[in-house]
């Protein structure tokens, strides 16, 4: 059927424009949070302007719309492109393109005239429904798309109005209700596709680089970086422990290990070699599962020290599959790929605060020399270290002396340390003495190295909060921490200089350790109370959501298929199964339509039966021989106060039931009107009891 309905110049009607406008706003609002403020404001403004114009009388509206030339809008689009290029520094990337699409729908809406434009808008809008998920796939983000879905379906219906409705005033309720119905009926199919549609283990094309600049622990450390991170309530990862949860002071989540120091910034070693997992050596083993939020880096976090390689939970049963990550000699886990989607892995750790170096011979010597390397400068620190060296020949005693010094001298633990410029170590140790964990860890390592003891900085997270609702641990960005390791007596030993300054940081978390005037994330400070409780419940919900919905990726799909034992099926078998299930869905739905139709009796008859029942309870049952008019007349005689209502009831039911009315379309409208009258007239009748009483009087 290539023939199109012969409507030469169809114009979008006001209800169509309004519905499209509502659709655009509904899909724009969830997106507006993630694009630059000016683009959000501009895009929304364009849509609102068109809606306001639509409210004007038609002559004025046409004049206004004609005044907008299409080349003008093209110019606006071009200017937008340019501004986005200025704002982002590039245009052909994901984020600028999303922002451009956001504005483009507004521009297109301004110039939309025909139903074809409407179709284009619907398509653009449906794509715009997906884009917020680039930035957040939370439960809220999912809920926020529901109005858009409904309005999308309603817009499609309004763009293709059936004849009987076209002329009449369109009520919003009908298309919305029908949309909801169509969407709900489609849910089983959507679920089927969700489970069976094959996912990819690697992206089709490269992920744009702008993903990397996300918050999270980075692979380097400079003063101020961790304290900045500490202001964020965002969840870094969640942990489900198999056994009891270790106490807070044992919860050091090992992340990037930083050996190289250039005077201000700490970075990881450049040596690439494989490490060995250490042996238990009597330490207790902890088994747990980490659900890591995507941080677009490769570091995986494990309790100090990882006992074995992490296993993606869902491949665990299979036993096969490539290793998720490798271990470096300094005992950090590096994932093979960027963590760009929530990652769940099983991990075992030994709770040890010291371990033997993994490397031997040449490698060990390289590791030692790397851990002793100090940039020139920091004369006061070097002198101080030399003094300590003279006083404490024993390495362990020297380290303990530094910690004691931190503890005794007026060092302060604060989120807002003064900004130290040149030679920050000296100035921190001997002048400001105010710092956050990265300052203490960094200065501690510098002092040890100056005293000839190999040492390095370890970053990661410390502590975490147990969610009573889910029985799991939440580790937030605000738990980011830095500590130190020193090679003393053939063992790397963990030292936490922050603990020497503010022991409560380790026991109680950030909120307990900082002075009250410091800015702390709300959730780190509030310990008790319903707010925190609600927050935790919400987080538990989100955790499940993450685990089962967002986290449903290639790996999870494979494991589900494995569980159902359909993972060995060939592609054609999968397609066949999918088709059969789809056919079953269609058949079920058609059957349901048919059944529903049988159940739905004539509405007029239903109303009439209801009336007869009511009057029977009021003491006046209908005689079998009585027609509607006679019965209504008898009722009117009995309740003179309701003459008008009974007259309407009798007449409209008789008309609905027996009289042929006009031509078909008129008939439909007339029927609907009469049904409404009948319904209304029955609705205004008093209750049977009131009727009985009034009849008596």
């Amino acid at each position, binding site marked *: *059927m290539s*023939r199109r*309905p*012969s409507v030469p110049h169809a114009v979008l009607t006001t209800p169509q424009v309004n519905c499209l406008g509502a659709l655009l706003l509904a899909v724009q609002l969830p997106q507006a949070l993630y694009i630059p403020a000016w683009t959000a404001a501009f895009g929304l403004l364009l849509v609102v302007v068109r809606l306001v114009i639509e409210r004007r009388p038609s002559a004025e509206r046409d004049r206004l719309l004609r005044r907008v030339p299409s080349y003008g809008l093209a110019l606006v689009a071009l200017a937008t492109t340019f501004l986005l290029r200025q704002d982002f520094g590039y245009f052909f990337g994901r984020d600028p393109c999303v922002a451009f699409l956001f504005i483009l729908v507004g521009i297109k809406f301004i110039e939309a005239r025909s139903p074809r434009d409407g*179709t284009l808008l619907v*398509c653009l809008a*449906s*794509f715009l*429904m*997906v884009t917020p*998920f680039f930035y957040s*796939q939370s439960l809220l*983000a*999912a809920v926020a*798309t529901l109005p858009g879905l409904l309005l*999308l*379906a309603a817009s*499609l*219906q309004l*763009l*293709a*109005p*059936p*004849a*009987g*409705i076209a002329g009449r005033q369109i009520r919003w309720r009908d298309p919305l209700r029908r949309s909801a119905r*169509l*969407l709900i*009926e*489609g*849910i*089983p*199919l*959507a*679920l089927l*596709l969700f489970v069976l*549609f094959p*996912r*990819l283990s690697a*992206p*089709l*094309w490269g*992920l744009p680089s702008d993903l990397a600049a996300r918050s999270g622990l980075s692979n380097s450390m400079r003063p101020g970086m961790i304290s900045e991170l500490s202001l964020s309530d965002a969840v870094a990862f969640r942990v489900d422990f198999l056994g009891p949860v270790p106490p807070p002071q044992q919860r050091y989540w090992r992340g990037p290990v930083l050996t190289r120091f250039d005077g201000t910034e700490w970075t990881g070693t450049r040596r690439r070699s494989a490490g060995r997992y250490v042996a238990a050596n009597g330490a207790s083993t902890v088994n747990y599962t980490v659900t890591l939020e995507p941080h677009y880096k490769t570091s995986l976090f494990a309790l100090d020290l990882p006992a074995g390689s992490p296993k993606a939970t869902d491949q665990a049963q299979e036993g096969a599959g490539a290793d998720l990550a490798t271990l470096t000699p300094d005992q950090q886990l590096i994932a093979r790929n960027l963590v*760009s*989607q929530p990652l769940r892995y099983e991990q075992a750790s030994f709770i040890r605060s010291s371990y033997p170096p993994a490397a031997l011979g040449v490698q060990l010597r390289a590791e030692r020399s790397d851990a002793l390397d100090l940039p020139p400068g920091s004369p006061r620190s070097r002198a101080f270290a030399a003094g300590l060296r003279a006083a404490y020949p024993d390495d362990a005693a020297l380290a303990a002396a530094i910690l004691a010094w931190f503890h005794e001298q007026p060092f302060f633990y604060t989120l807002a340390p003064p900004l130290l410029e040149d030679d920050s170590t000296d100035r921190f140790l001997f002048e400001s003495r105010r710092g956050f964990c990265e300052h203490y860890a960094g200065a501690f390592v510098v002092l040890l190295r100056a005293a000839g003891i190999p040492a390095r900085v370890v970053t990661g997270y410390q502590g975490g909060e147990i969610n009573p609702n889910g029985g799991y641990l939440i580790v937030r960005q605000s738990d980011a921490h830095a500590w130190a390791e020193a090679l003393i007596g053939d063992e790397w030993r963990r030292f936490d200089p922050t603990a020497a300054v503010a022991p409560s940081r380790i026991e109680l978390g950030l909120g307990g350790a900082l002075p009250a005037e410091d800015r702390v994330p709300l959730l780190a400070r509030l310990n008790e109370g319903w707010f925190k409780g609600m927050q935790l419940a919400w987080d538990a919900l989100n955790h499940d959501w993450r685990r089962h*919905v967002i*986290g*449903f*990726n290639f790996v999870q799909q494979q494991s589900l298929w494995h569980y159902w034992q359909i993972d060995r099926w060939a592609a054609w078998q999968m397609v066949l199964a999918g088709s059969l299930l789809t056919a079953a*869905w*269609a058949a079920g*739905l*058609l059957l349901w*339509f048919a059944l529903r*139709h049988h159940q*739905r009796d004539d509405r007029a008859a239903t109303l009439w039966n209801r009336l007869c029942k009511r009057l029977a309870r009021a003491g006046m049952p209908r005689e079998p021989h009585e027609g509607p008019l006679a019965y209504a007349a008898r009722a009117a005689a009995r309740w003179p106060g309701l003459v008008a209502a009974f007259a309407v009831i009798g007449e409209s039911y008789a008309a609905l039931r027996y009289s042929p009315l006009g031509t*078909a379309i008129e*008939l*439909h409208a007339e*029927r609907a009107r009469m049904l409404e009258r009948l319904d209304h007239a029955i609705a205004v009748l008093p209750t049977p009891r009131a009727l009985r009483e009034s009849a008596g009087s």
Partner: protein
Amino acid sequence: MASLLTASRPAAWLTRWRQALWRTKPADLTSVILRHRRIYILPTRRGMAFLATVMMMVITSLNYSLSLGFGVAFLLLGFAASALLHTFRNLAGIAVRPLAAGETFAGGTLPFVVSLTGGAGIRRGFRLATADGPSPQFDLPEGNALTVTLQRAATTRGLLALGRATLYSDYPVGLWRAWAYVHFPLEGVVYPAPEPSPPPLPAGRDGHDTLPSMGSDDTDLAGLRDYRPGDSPHRVAWKSVARGAGWYTKQFEGAGGGGPITLDWSDVPAEMSYEARIGRIAAWVLAAERLARPFSLRLPERTLASGQGRDHRRAALTLLALLPRSGSA
């Protein structure tokens, strides 16, 4: 030669298939109930654009592994699929019945009447298309039959078949179009176009030579009868139409004077073209009928006995309409 002929004829199974798929022959003799075997469904342009968008959403979600992106895309696909079922159901079960074919003169439009019954539930947003284009959109009321008149342009005299008609609807969301072909053997007669200003009727053969002047309507109005498609517009009681009282046709009593006449092919000048001669005789038939004069026809190889009235007029015009294409006489 014979073998060539059979070779060029499609195989029997092919014909059967073509009939089953495209309804090329007018084989729907009575009422047709539209069932799944007759109903076709394909996406409209809007539907294709929508499905393409959903595909793009899926690909994007695949690349960025956006589970919620999949969720939205699949919900929309589910929506489209359930819309497909609704579009199908809207068409399924409708009974289409051929009612009547009208009559007209060449150059006019020939009406065909079919009736549609939707059964339970309102069926929405239909059009019926013939080779000449679609009808206006209509809904089918619950439980009642709807008669739809299809107009086909009648260009030349002869028989005009309704041909294959297509009933289609995009309801409810315009993403899918469901359609079904019905091919009724309905044929209407297209009368030859009468000559616009013909010369007076030929003289009667039986001595009644008085010819009343052509234009004047000096006959008496005998009464009104129901309008039937094809009645001359001159005889429609326009006053009653304008009052909204319905369509009636004026009937006249033949006080027109003059006895029976014979409209003879040979009375028409032979130098006129074949079709022009037919047109003149047609004009005479109308004139004789208006004057209520009994007439008979004498055409090449065909004759019509003398008579008068509506049926006689129709018989005469039909005879003219069905004359062979090119004059052999």
